[in-house]
């Protein structure tokens, strides 16, 4: 900090230089240009939104500002002076604090310990000072935290507050919030917006990274749009002040996708729902634990040709439901019936043979084995089955041919089928996993966050495919945290909270009203008097 202070004394800050300047920065990763010749200026007293799709280069920019990566070309400037941020320490010393998309707190430490993490080891923590300052933060920014609670036991929203409090305790001048609303309820996001407003009013600069257009407009003073690593355009405060939300969003969409917003919100699918019930779940319950949400009294039906959407904030039992349906998680009570067969006690392979398929959201963590070639990954759920194995002996030619067919049919971009699947992009891995789940006679397919982390092209292709699967008379369960996606695809939407179904809504194309009702259910409000039929 002292070094920076002297710099400021030597050179009166140039008001146009801002707190941080990025000057023609470029960053390469193997095979991709993550950031391509981007110049930006961050000003004090402004919420600067960095908007872009996945893979647009937002995270890499955050990494550079946080000292995790250094640009290959171009340079950073602090208060107009060229500077290097070679490590997180350098970034922190420059007054930059980053709240990462995935919590960067130590879950087993207390809140207090996380607040002072990074202090010299031999020092004794000064509890009184921290308590005093936290009192001030509660007054000024409504940040109220239980100092002695174990961090991992707090909600994601509270954890985010810890990181913001930590930034303020360090007297940061710039706070970066990376995809900060992705884990929050709509209401929680609003609170965060208000808090950002207070932060900039107190003279800080806030960099807010998001891929949600409406948030960008509502919370931002300045919006920079990134596209494929390049700065596609910027809307300054003056410009934004003259635009209505719709106008601004139109303009942003123009910058992001080079076309009108009409196509951005996918139009509602033509329903293909029939009366035949394919999957019938009654009173399903699973055991919970310290880290796992248990399920309570889950009852639902999926009909042929229907897409049943499941909404909810991440971590409210959706994954457990998907696993229980797939046979991957033991069921404590209840019944699962697939067409005319009760499959409650059937294992993964048996359910799979009967046509119940599950496409996981954790593509690399459990969906595939990164070091294995694509060919093995396409048959991972059919190990030992003919025609790929004969009496337990592998038939490599058969497997390779199958993999090549799948690659061709789903347009997977890869050198060949022997490439380790871990080297592919998320979208291409997703195609392979989808191909694997659709092999044979699929009847009901459970999709868990199928478009999460994909680029726009792949998102659209995936959504289209899900629609086609339903149109072909299969049943689809679509778990998603993206309400737009659910409202575009689903026939009915179930909202989960705390491992329970909070309500079931028909997707009547009700627009904002429907969105609001889903939002309330997501926050745990019961649907008034309406039974979960």
């Amino acid at each position, binding site marked *: 900090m002292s070094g920076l202070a002297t710099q400021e004394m030597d050179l009166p800050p140039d008001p146009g230089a801002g707190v941080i300047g990025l000057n023609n920065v470029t960053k390469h990763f193997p095979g991709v240009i993550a950031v391509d010749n981007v110049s930006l200026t961050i000003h004090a007293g402004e919420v600067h939104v960095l908007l872009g799709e996945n893979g647009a280069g937002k995270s890499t920019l955050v990494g550079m500002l946080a000292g*995790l990566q250094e640009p290959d070309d171009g340079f950073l400037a602090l208060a107009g002076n060229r500077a290097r941020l070679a490590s*997180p320490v350098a970034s*922190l010393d420059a007054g930059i604090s980053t709240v990462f998309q995935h919590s*960067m707190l*130590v879950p087993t430490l207390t809140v207090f310990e996380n607040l002072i*993490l990074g*202090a010299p080891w031999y020092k004794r923590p000064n509890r009184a000072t921290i308590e005093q300052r936290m009192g001030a933060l509660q007054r000024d920014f409504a940040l109220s935290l239980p100092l002695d609670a174990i961090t991992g036991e707090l909600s994601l929203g509270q954890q985010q507050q810890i990181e913001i409090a930590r930034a303020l305790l360090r007297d940061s001048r710039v706070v970066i919030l990376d995809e900060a609303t992705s884990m929050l309820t709509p209401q929680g996001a609003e609170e965060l917006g208000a808090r950002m407003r207070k932060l900039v009013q107190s003279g800080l600069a806030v960099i807010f990274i998001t891929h949600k257009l409406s948030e960008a407009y509502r919370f931002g003073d300045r919006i920079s749009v990134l596209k494929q690593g390049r700065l596609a355009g910027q809307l300054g405060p003056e410009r934004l002040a003259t635009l209505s939300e719709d106008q601004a969003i139109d303009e942003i969409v123009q910058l992001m996708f080079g076309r009108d917003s009409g196509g951005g919100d996918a139009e509602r699918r033509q329903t293909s729902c029939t009366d035949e019930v394919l999957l019938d779940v009654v009173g399903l319950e699973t055991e919970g634990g310290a880290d796992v949400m248990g399920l309570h009294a889950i009852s639902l039906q999926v009909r042929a040709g229907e897409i049943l959407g499941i909404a909810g904030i991440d971590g409210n039992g959706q994954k457990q439901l998907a696993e229980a349906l797939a046979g991957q998680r033991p069921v404590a009570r209840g019944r699962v019936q697939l067409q005319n067969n009760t499959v409650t006690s059937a294992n993964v392979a048996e359910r799979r043979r009967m046509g119940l398929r599950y496409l996981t959201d954790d593509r690399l963590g459990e969906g595939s084995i990164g070091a294995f070639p694509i060919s093995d990954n396409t048959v991972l759920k059919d190990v030992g089955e003919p025609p790929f194995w004969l009496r337990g002996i592998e038939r490599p030619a058969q497997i390779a041919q199958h993999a090549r067919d799948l690659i061709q049919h789903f347009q997977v971009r890869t050198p060949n089928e022997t490439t380790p699947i871990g080297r592919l992009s998320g979208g291409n891995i997703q195609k392979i996993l989808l191909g694997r789940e659709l092999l044979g006679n699929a009847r009901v397919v459970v999709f868990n966050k199928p478009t999460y982390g994909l680029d726009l092209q792949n998102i659209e292709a995936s959504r289209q495919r899900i629609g086609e699967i339903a149109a072909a008379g299969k049943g689809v369960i679509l778990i998603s945290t993206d309400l737009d996606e659910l409202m575009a695809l689903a026939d009915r939407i179930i909202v989960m909270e705390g491992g329970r179904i909070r309500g079931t809504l028909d997707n009547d194309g009700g627009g904002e009203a429907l969105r609001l009702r889903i939002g309330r259910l997501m926050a745990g409000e019961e649907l008034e008097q309406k039974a979960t039929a």
Partner: protein
Amino acid sequence: MEALLTEAFLSSLLTGAIVAAIPMLLAGLGEQMSEKAGVLNIGIEGMMLMGAYLGFFVAFQFDSIWLGFLGGIVGGMLVAVLMAVLCVRLGLNQIVIGIGLTLGVEGLTALLHHFQFSRTYPRLPAPVRADLPLLSDIPVIGPSIFSRHPIVYIALLSVVVLAYLYRRTNLGMTLRAAGESPAALDVAGGNVEGVRVFSVLFTGAMAGLGGAYLANVGAGLFIPFMTGGAGFIGIVLAMLARGRPLWVLIGALIFGAALSLTTALQVAGSNIPTDVIQMLPFAAVMLVLMVFGRKARLPAALGISYERGAR
């Protein structure tokens, strides 16, 4: 059976328990710090053995048991430096390197021993004892506990000092952060590599001291392979102690007692083979692991090297 309850028997049992516990205590305290910081230090057996060799060598050459302890610390740290460079700095597999270092030190010290001491088998003079006034006059426990070599008191004191540092300073929290979530420590401005290197070196120093104790106080001479798994027991103690130095001490005393039964029973004239009794500590470890294994929660990033920005 009444022979088992004589004063001589009890005294030698208690003495033996403490004598046998000290090396495991030192190793366990050292390993505890590494494990907190996320380094599974399988090389500790080698560090101990190197400490035993160099500790004895220095004590013998300079005729000073204290210089010998210093030599032991240096010996343990020499191996620890290799471990730190290979596993923390270069990020190589901690288990493979740990085994490699242990095997290497076993071979090296056996080789050196062969060329230096195998003909003469020199012994050190019996170590001095520090009688704590008054306390050492208590029957049975007096001579067992309060009339030992000063290094015993230093080892016991280090339990208190470490417990204080872990609890009252930022040390404990910094170590745990490095072991649980190194990326979080890194972005908070901590030095993950520094913390881990420090903890590995500390482990080396403690293990080396424990080895030197084995050679200089316990046996009075160096024998190849003399640590006989004490370092590995240190690892178990650290795993089961869940971060608390006091629990390492308790565990070490229990294992020490089991080990010292061998000598105590010999004193009492029993004819049970020593192998049976030597099995006791290992059997106890397995028993403890069966009962508490589920609860022996290990740091999330234990055994995993950290690379900034790795995705």
